[in-house]
């Protein structure tokens, strides 16, 4: 069970426990060009690992360390190896491999399974899927798909807006005005990804992708008004399906005891699912234009990407001036 109140959950998130072969077939049918060749009755089998295995050595009889719990891909090598065997050897090789609890077998290159394989698949209820893709293409696509399906995720109470191409995650306590800032940013021509509940997935090392749960996609709740459908109201230019989460902007009430960042030389970070992103704490008070500041934060992210930091630039200028003054002082003394 999730324990989102803990810091640990923010770091680790939730991971999908398993994926049914039927789901792989439903979602991956088009991009992966998957069709069922045999073992239809085993479609409820579960895939529990994102790794893919090629069972060449297992077919050749080396069954120690056989990663049978993974999706098995039979490329041209395996298929030709099986074809080259005598019928009885082929039956034995197939039987010993299919005796394991394999989630499913995939045959790319439009290869067809032999008679023995089909019989074993039906008997053991292990689905055999076929694909038109080449083995390399299929493995690449399947691996990307499984990576994303098994990616850890968390739901964060916040808003995610694409501002000038930077993904700004707006956080802060309930009622502080996250949704209002998001709406104002949409008004200014930026694109809303999610409001209230942002689903953040770690798609790859160092890469956080945020999106909205389908149910509430592109809806915003504004206190006093109610729900607003941003897509209907502002059209497609005001929305986006997903966006990389690049900066967290945390809205906080002004507090005299908090020392707010004044220069910007030190960067504070926060971490989601083990990925560090910059954190900007923004004090709010009535009359302050948060959306405009959010735009500036987004542009600042771009400047930093191009190697420019206003704080560092100012510091450089100061050092230059101090050095010049020192030189002048030296020259004056020397003149005397």
């Amino acid at each position, binding site marked *: *069970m*999730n324990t*989102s*109140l803990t810091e640990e959950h923010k770091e680790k998130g*939730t991971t999908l426990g398993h994926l049914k072969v039927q789901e792989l077939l439903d979602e991956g049918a088009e991009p992966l060009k998957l069709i069922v060749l045999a073992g239809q009755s085993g479609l409820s089998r579960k895939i529990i690992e994102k790794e893919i295995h090629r069972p060449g050595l297992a077919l050749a009889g080396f069954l120690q360390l056989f990663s049978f719990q993974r999706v098995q891909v039979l490329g041209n090598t395996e298929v030709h190896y099986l074809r080259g065997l005598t019928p009885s050897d082929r039956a034995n090789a197939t039987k010993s491999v299919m005796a394991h609890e394999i989630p499913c077998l995939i045959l790319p290159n439009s290869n067809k399974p032999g008679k023995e394989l089909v019989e074993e698949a039906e008997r053991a209820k292990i689905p055999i899927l076929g694909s038109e893709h080449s083995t390399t293409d299929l493995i690449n696509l399947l691996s990307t798909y499984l990576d994303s399906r098994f990616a850890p995720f968390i*739901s964060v*109470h916040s808003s995610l807006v694409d501002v000038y191409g930077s993904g700004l995650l707006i956080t802060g*306590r*309930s*009622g502080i005005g996250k949704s209002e800032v998001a709406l104002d940013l949409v008004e200014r021509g930026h694109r809303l990804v999610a*409001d*209230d*509940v942002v689903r953040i997935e770690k798609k790859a090392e160092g890469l956080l992708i945020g999106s909205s*749960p389908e*149910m*509430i996609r592109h*809806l915003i*709740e504004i206190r006093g008004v109610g*729900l607003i459908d941003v897509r209907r109201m502002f059209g497609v230019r005001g929305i986006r399906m997903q966006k990389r989460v690049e900066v967290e902007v945390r809205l906080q009430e002004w507090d005299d005891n908090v020392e707010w960042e004044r220069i910007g030389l030190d960067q504070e970070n926060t971490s989601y699912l083990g990925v560090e992103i910059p954190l900007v704490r923004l004090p709010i008070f009535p009359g302050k234009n948060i959306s405009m500041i959010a735009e500036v934060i987004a542009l600042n992210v771009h400047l930093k990407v191009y190697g420019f930091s206003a704080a560092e630039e100012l510091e450089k200028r100061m050092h230059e001036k101090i050095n010049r003054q020192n030189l002048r002082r030296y020259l004056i003394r020397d003149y005397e």
Partner: protein
Amino acid sequence: MQQSFVILLNKLGLHARPASHLVKIAAKYKDTTVEIAHRGEVVNAKSILGVMMLAAGQGTELELRVEGPQEEECIKDIVQLINDKFYED
């Protein structure tokens, strides 16, 4: 932290109106974190979109987690609201 498991008794489950009752009560406790967990999803109980996203129907068991000042009072209020069927039916 206070934790409680409650079953939705009202006929239509957590639809718009009950959800807004719940959110209003949770939002009264400003400095308290109120969360609802259901089917592996955890949402902030002060967020109407979050609560409605759960699409919890009658008979659904929800897990409440409350942390912060007045947590006992807060969870009591919410459990009572749910057990009173959100003043509906």
